[in-house]
Every structure is written in structure tokens, then in C-alpha cells.
């Protein structure tokens, strides 16, 4: 028994390290005397430990998949890969928080505590194998996110963002929970595997109850990854939160929610005909609406943060098309998209953050004539925008291409056309921003203070994958292809 427990723990080292990191950060934050001097050390410590976590995750990637802790948690290559993406995203956000002026100096180490906490919730969600772990994962993720979005506590906008997030989040979690409770009643268990076993025997009323319950349950996850009817909070929260928090929200909770959505879809909806058909239909409609709403609304925006929020809605809408096909190729496409999206989002937010720190606003104007002041940064930003739009030499193209190919392979031509039209729309507003940057008139030769050699080096380092995954994508594609979900 004890031996088995230690065997389980050896697969669970990354999460354990994160929990230890969070507690030690909490102690360090509350005991240090000279705050200004030790802040860099605390953040450096957090980054170093996350790097160690990353090492353990990479070593887990090759392990055989297993259910641990009485089937509560699944450690499989799929969840491990999602966790790798989330850890890199967290490291990026923590590094950005160190130089950002958007976070109060005395709250910087608290940012890393909260970020690691959300990361733990995301890890729980990504490898959840029963409804209880799933619910706990969603709530750990959400409750700390509410705090993070109201981090600028002296400003009405940030507090309002946190409040809206908390109210929408509480509502959707409650509705999802109500759905889960009826699923438990109809299927007799909270373990995914045992629930699926009951599905084929359902008939009449109980099948209807299960269908409705799944729709209610979907509200909870759909809200976390901001799918169409539940996306209303996203632009407000993204705009009100400090930029490092926004960058964090665009990556970690989204990837965790996507992981949960993929796992649920793969486990529950490949068995029974009625459920599969209705789920696929629902997902296609929601994906089309999400993409269209995200991209069309992004056109009229004047705040870059809001623009990136709507563009992230559009990207998630495209990503869930990989779920619609319900096979391993679709998952591979989503994972590759997720990896690429993480790097692109981080760069876009890094550059926006340094510019808006300088000018105190995040409207398009801060980008005006960037190419005359910082040519390298302007070119990288333009390349990232083209990559987000899915232009060929960059990795964004390969990511979108994969999604299109799995959808067309399943002969879902209608949704493929909608997705293609949306790509064109998205190109318009990305190019508009690039145009402001390159052809706009600069307001002088003032350099941006945020672009220190260190920060520029990090941005260039993050840009390397965006560029090279567009050309040498086979290796990462093989890794994503190996990351299959372990169900039985």
C-alpha cells in the first residue's frame, strides 16, 4: 500500500514541487525585511523552481500512462504536454511581472504566489479523471484568478474586472455543478470510466436528463475557455487586469480548460450515437459562433488588450474544431496549436506591456512608428501578428493548416469555409496594427525604457520557436502526436 503510494507520488512530483514552491514563496514573501532588494531574488527563485518542474515534466513525457490516487488523477503524455505549456506560460508571465509597471512593486512577489496557485489548479484540471478533481481544478483556477484580476486595487477598472470575473465565474461554476449533480444521479458515479460504462444502457427520460446535464456542465468549461455565449467577461476582464495578468489568463486557464474539454469529449462522446451526434453538432455551432463573434468584434477595438482578448476568443473557437472530429489527429492539431499560440501570445503581450508602461495607455497609438525607434521589436511584433493571422512562413500557418486538414478530412466543409472567412477577417485587424507600427509617424526619437537588453533578449528567444516551428515543425508534431489520452 505504502509502496504503491510512493510509486504514484513519483509520477506526481511536478505538482508536489509547485505546492512546495507556493508555500515557500508565501513564507518568504511575508518574512523578508528589505522588500525592494529581495524582490528579484524571490522571483528568480520562483522561476528556477518552475524550471525544475519543467525538467520533471519532460521526464514524465516518456513514462507509461497511469491512473493514480484511486483513479482520481490521470498522468498521461497528453496532460503532461499541456502542463509543460502551462508552466512555460507561467514562467513567461512571472518574468513579465518583474519588469512591468502595471503591477504595484509591493505586490510583485504576490503575483508569483497567485500565478503558481492558478498553475496548480490548471495541472489538476488537465489530469482530472473524475468529476470531483475536475470541479476542484476549475475552482482552484477560478478563485485565484479573481484575486489576480483585481490586483491593481486602487483603480476602479481593475476592481471592476475582478468583480465581473467573480460573479460570472460563480454563476457558471454553479450551473456546471448542478449539471454534474444530475449526471451523478443518472450515471451512479463520479468516476469518468464508470460513468461511461452506464451510458449505453440509458433510454428515454434518463437519456434526456443526461443530455441536458451535459449542456449545463458544458457551461462551466465553456466559460473558462470563453466560448461564444459565455465570452462576455473576457474583454472586460482582460482590459481591466494588469497586463502580466492578462498574458497569464490568455494562456494558463485557457489551456487547462481546453485540456478538460478534450478529455471529456474523448471519454464520453465516442460511444453512444445520440450523444456523439448532438455533441458534435453543438460544438460545430459554438465553434462557428465563437470564431465569428471574436473576430468581427475585434475589428472595432481601439485598445490593444481588448483586441488581443477578442483575438484569443477567435483562436479558441478555431482550436475546438480539433475536438469536433473526436480522434487523435484532432488532438495533435490542438496541442500543436496550443504550443504555438502560447509563444505568440507571450510575445504580443510582452511588447504591448513595455509600450503601455511607457505611455500609460494601451491604445493603438502607442505602437505608432515603433519601427523607427526599435526596428527589431517592431519586426518581431509584425511577424507575430502575421503568425497569429496564419500567414505561411510562420508557425501560426502550420497550426491553422493542421486544424483545417482534420476538419476537411471529416468532410465538414461548411465549418471549414466559416473558419477560412474568419482567418481573412482576422488578417484585417492584425495588419491594421502592423500598419500603425510601420507606416505611422513616430512622435520623436524617445526610446522605450522597457526594452532593456535583457527583455529584448527574452523576446527574441521566445520568437525563435514562432519562426522555426513554421519550417521545422515535424519534431514538435511527433511529440504532440505521441501525447494521446489514456482512457481505460
Amino acid at each position: 500500500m505504502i509502496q504503491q503510494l510512493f510509486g504514484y507520488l513519483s509520477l506526481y512530483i511536478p505538482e508536489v514541487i509547485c505546492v512546495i514552491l507556493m508555500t515557500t514563496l508565501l513564507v518568504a514573501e511575508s518574512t523578508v525585511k528589505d522588500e525592494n532588494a529581495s524582490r528579484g531574488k524571490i522571483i528568480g527563485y520562483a522561476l528556477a523552481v518552475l524550471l525544475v518542474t519543467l525538467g520533471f515534466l519532460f521526464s514524465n513525457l516518456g513514462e507509461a500512462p497511469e491512473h493514480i490516487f484511486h483513479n482520481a488523477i490521470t498522468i498521461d503524455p497528453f496532460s503532461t504536454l499541456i502542463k509543460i505549456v502551462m508552466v512555460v506560460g507561467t514562467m513567461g508571465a512571472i518574468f513579465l511581472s518583474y519588469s512591468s509597471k502595471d503591477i504595484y512593486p509591493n505586490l510583485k512577489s504576490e503575483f508569483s504566489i497567485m500565478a503558481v496557485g492558478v498553475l496548480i489548479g490548471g495541472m489538476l484540471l488537465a489530469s482530472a479523471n473524475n468529476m470531483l478533481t475536475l470541479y476542484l481544478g476549475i475552482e482552484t483556477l477560478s478563485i485565484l484568478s479573481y484575486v489576480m484580476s483585481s490586483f491593481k486595487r486602487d483603480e476602479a477598472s481593475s476592481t471592476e474586472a475582478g468583480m465581473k470575473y467573480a460573479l460570472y465565474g460563480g454563476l457558471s461554476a454553479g450551473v456546471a455543478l448542478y449539471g454534474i449533480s444530475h449526471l451523478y444521479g443518472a450515471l451512479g458515479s463520479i468516476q469518468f470510466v464508470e460513468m461511461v460504462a452506464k451510458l449505453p444502457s440509458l433510454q428515454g427520460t434518463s437519456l434526456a436528463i443526461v443530455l441536458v446535464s451535459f449542456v449545463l456542465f458544458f457551461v462551466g468549461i465553456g466559460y473558462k475557455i470563453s466560448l461564444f455565449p459565455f465570452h462576455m467577461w473576457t474583454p472586460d476582464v482582460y482590459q481591466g487586469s494588469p497586463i502580466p495578468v492578462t498574458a497569464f489568463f490568455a494562456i494558463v486557464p485557457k489551456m487547462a480548460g481546453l485540456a478538460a474539454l478534450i478529455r471529456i469529449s474523448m471519454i464520453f462522446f465516442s460511444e453512444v450515437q445520440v450523444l456523439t451526434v448532438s455533441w458534435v453538432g453543438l460544438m460545430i455551432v459554438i465553434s462557428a459562433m465563437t470564431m465569428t463573434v471574436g473576430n468581427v468584434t475585434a475589428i472595432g477595438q481601439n485598445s490593444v488588450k481588448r483586441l488581443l482578448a477578442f483575438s484569443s476568443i477567435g483562436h479558441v473557437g478555431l482550436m475546438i474544431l480539433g475536438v469536433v472530429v473526436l480522434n487523435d489527429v484532432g488532438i495533435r492539431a490542438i496541442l500543436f496549436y496550443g504550443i504555438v499560440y502560447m509563444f505568440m501570445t507571450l510575445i504580443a503581450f510582452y511588447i504591448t506591456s513595455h509600450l503601455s508602461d511607457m505611455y500609460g495607455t494601451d491604445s493603438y497609438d502607442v505602437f505608432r512608428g515603433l519601427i523607427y525607434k526599435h526596428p527589431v521589436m517592431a519586426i518581431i511584433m509584425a511577424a507575430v501578428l502575421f503568425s497569429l493571422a496564419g500567414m505561411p512562413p510562420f508557425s501560426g500557418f502550420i497550426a491553422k493548416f493542421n486544424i483545417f486538414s482534420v476538419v476537411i478530412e471529416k468532410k465538414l466543409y461548411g465549418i471549414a469555409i466559416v473558419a477560412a472567412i474568419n482567418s481573412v477577417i482576422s488578417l484585417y485587424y492584425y495588419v491594421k496594427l502592423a500598419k500603425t507600427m510601420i507606416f505611422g509617424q513616430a512622435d520623436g526619437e524617445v526610446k522605450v525604457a522597457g526594452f532593456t537588453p535583457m527583455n529584448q533578449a527574452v523576446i527574441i528567444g521566445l520568437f525563435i520557436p514562432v519562426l522555426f516551428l513554421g519550417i521545422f515543425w515535424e519534431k514538435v508534431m511527433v511529440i504532440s502526436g505521441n501525447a494521446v489520452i489514456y482512457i481505460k
Partner: protein
Amino acid sequence: MMSLASYLIISLVLFVVGLVVMIARKNIVAILLGIELILNAAALNFVAYSRYVTNNLDGHIFSLFIIVVAAAEAAVGLAIVIRFFQIKETIHIDEATQLRN
């Protein structure tokens, strides 16, 4: 003798009342109360199903977790509402108008 149906009806009523409170009331504290009602509807469902249908302990454990998480969520929610009150000096939801298109 109470049957499963009575519990389900009560929990449905709680759920609907919670939703209506969240939509109709303009006071933020009342909206937080609406969330609590919805969470309690789910918890009641879990216990009732556990007692009458499934005969295992999953439901009981789940409802305990719901109570704990609801407390944590209410604490964070109220803290944010207090901050909002200190800045705006009101807890009317229509005053939250800084962020919009």
C-alpha cells in the same frame, strides 16, 4: 415519507431562485447570495441522489467539498466587493461601467 422527487423539486426551486436573484437584483451582495443558492441546490442534489439512487459515498464527499469551495469563493467575492465599495461608495451593479466597448 420523503421521496427523491421532493428533494429534486426543492433543489430545482433553489436553482431557479438563485438564477432569478442573479439576474434581477442589482445589489452585488444579493448576487453573491444567488450564487450560494445555486451551489446549495447542487449540494442538495448530490446528497439526495447518494441516499436514494446510488448508495455510495461519492455524493456526500462531493457536497462537503462544495461547502468548502463555496466558502472560499464567498470570501474572495466579498473582499473584491468591499474594495469596489471603498472606491465607488456603492454596491450597485449598474455603477460598474468602467469597462465596456
